[in-house]
């Protein structure tokens, strides 16, 4: 686009105004959350509200750590999310490679089936899933949750990785195979080339596992097993809402997502272009 958009032109002014409005709409709620998290209790409820805390305090954070199981929830969320990423990659990288590099009967059917399972929303499978998990003795375990997330991420991960493997020219791989075994060619040549796809897949999987509410709500009952979204929802519902503490929890929950997100943002464009995460 090289249309005129000087800052002083009427067109430029309209653009800047619209950009500021969009910025306020998307970012202000987060800024307000952070500001509330840093205010002492009495300042949270003053009229008129203060945009920036006049007395910055970490009281809300220390209360969160001292009076709730926030750190346990945080550890649970980290364990479950990283295990989900690991298992998803372990299963979907070989599968996506197999789908693009080998010819076998029904290959296209498999690809179509994968897209079809993408249509099932959590609410449609949660009831039988819960009954089955209870039967297998996996209710109230992190393993049950990890399996649920892996199954849920798998169709999209396969789809995404498949497009990355497809984009790697066969000639490069064949040239590498002259010098070594196929496995060596895959490890030394194909995987490094598909790394952006692997990073994008890991990110989507991590975010899905980190953010999920419904599977964790249904599968986990013991308080010490809960992940962050369920733990925070229960903190909110427990009694009179401690807004400062809840906002502090909110800031800490989105911090890892923000870090991951800023770090690998350039990889994400590819993933979103081909379908996006569920939600």
């Amino acid at each position: 686009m090289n249309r005129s958009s000087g800052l002083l032109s009427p067109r430029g002014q309209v653009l800047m105004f619209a950009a500021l409005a969009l910025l306020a709409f998307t970012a202000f709620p987060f800024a307000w959350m952070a500001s509330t998290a840093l205010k002492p209790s009495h300042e949270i409820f003053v009229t008129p509200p203060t945009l920036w805390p006049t007395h910055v305090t970490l009281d809300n954070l220390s209360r969160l750590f001292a009076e709730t199981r926030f750190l346990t929830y945080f550890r649970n969320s980290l364990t479950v999310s990283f295990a989900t990423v690991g298992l998803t990659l372990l299963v979907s990288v070989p599968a996506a490679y197999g789908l693009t590099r080998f010819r076998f009967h029904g290959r296209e059917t498999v690809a179509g089936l994968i897209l079809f399972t993408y249509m099932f929303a959590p609410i449609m499978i949660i009831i039988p899933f819960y009954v089955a998990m209870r039967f297998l003795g996996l209710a109230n375990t992190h393993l049950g949750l990890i399996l649920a997330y892996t199954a849920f991420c798998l169709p999209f991960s396969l789809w995404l990785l498949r497009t990355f493997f497809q984009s790697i020219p066969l000639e490069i791989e064949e040239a590498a195979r002259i010098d070594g075994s196929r496995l060596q060619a895959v490890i030394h040549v194909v995987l490094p080339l598909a790394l952006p796809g692997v990073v994008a897949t890991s990110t989507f999987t991590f975010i899905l596992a980190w953010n999920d509410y419904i599977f964790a709500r249904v599968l986990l009952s013991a308080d010490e097993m809960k992940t962050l979204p369920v733990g925070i929802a229960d903190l909110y519902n427990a009694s009179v809402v401690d807004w400062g503490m809840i906002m502090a929890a909110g800031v800490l929950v989105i911090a890892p997502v923000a870090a991951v997100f800023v770090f690998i943002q350039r990889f994400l464009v590819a993933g979103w272009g081909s379908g996006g995460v569920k939600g």
Partner: protein
Amino acid sequence: MNGGRALSEPVPSANSELFRLPEAAVGILLILPAILLLLSLTLYPVLYGVWISFFNKHSFFPQQTFIGFDNYISLLRDPEFWASVWRGTVYALSTIVLQIILGVAAALLLNEVFPGRNILRGIVIFPYVVPTVVAVIVWKWLLNSQFGLVNYLIEKAGLVDQPISFMGKDWIMVSLIIVSVWQFFPFVVIGVLARLQTIPDELYDAAKVDGGNAWQRFVYVTLPQLKSVLFVIVLLRSIWMFTKFDTPWLMIQGGGAETYIRTLPIYTYMRTFAYYEAGLGSAMAVVMFLALAGAAVLYFRIWRREENL
């Protein structure tokens, strides 16, 4: 990218045996774990759900009695079921329309050149990647009837005389729609922006030569190019908004107006995990799936007919 790291990894020698198998067998072996996981954890639950929808089944205890289509019949006679379908439709349609309008507008803006554009592109996506529970508590705080910033601002601006009870029965659906649009419009931005970047500038130059104004260029040049991406976005967003559970569920916690946003997914969940009627809950999930699949088929048909014209 980081090619050097992979080079240092050891190569397991036992696996060379595997690669002497016929090509097709290796391919099938590679995708087998994925297929088994999908079959056991997605397809099996779906089929099992259809199966138990024909039973009177408690959610916790193993007892079950076959009752044929009784669950489905009692559903069709349940006024609360129809009310939840109606609420869900109001919620889904209004959020989809608003997400599309806001998302396309934001994408058009982010496709222009202005200072800070790349940072704003990153920020706009953010509401979509935070946990729903965070989105909901932030907005519950902003919309709080006593201490909420929104109430303070609209009162100060003279728009209202007394604070609005956003979580009360008259406003809770509006509040839910605001939160949902905020949370999900970035998905539309991402898809549309990616497509906008591939529209050749020559098309716009040609339209300018023909004397088209900005609106005409949007309608006759941009919109036709966006048609196919919007087709996919509307399909996915419809499936996900009609089945949305966590946003409305977290919105109704701690308020007295929960019946006013009890959509079909919420009612399904309640029947299963509050009334312990897993059979009936499954029947509702099956109905939800059939309705969506039917709508999707219809949607594809209409689309294909349009294409042929």
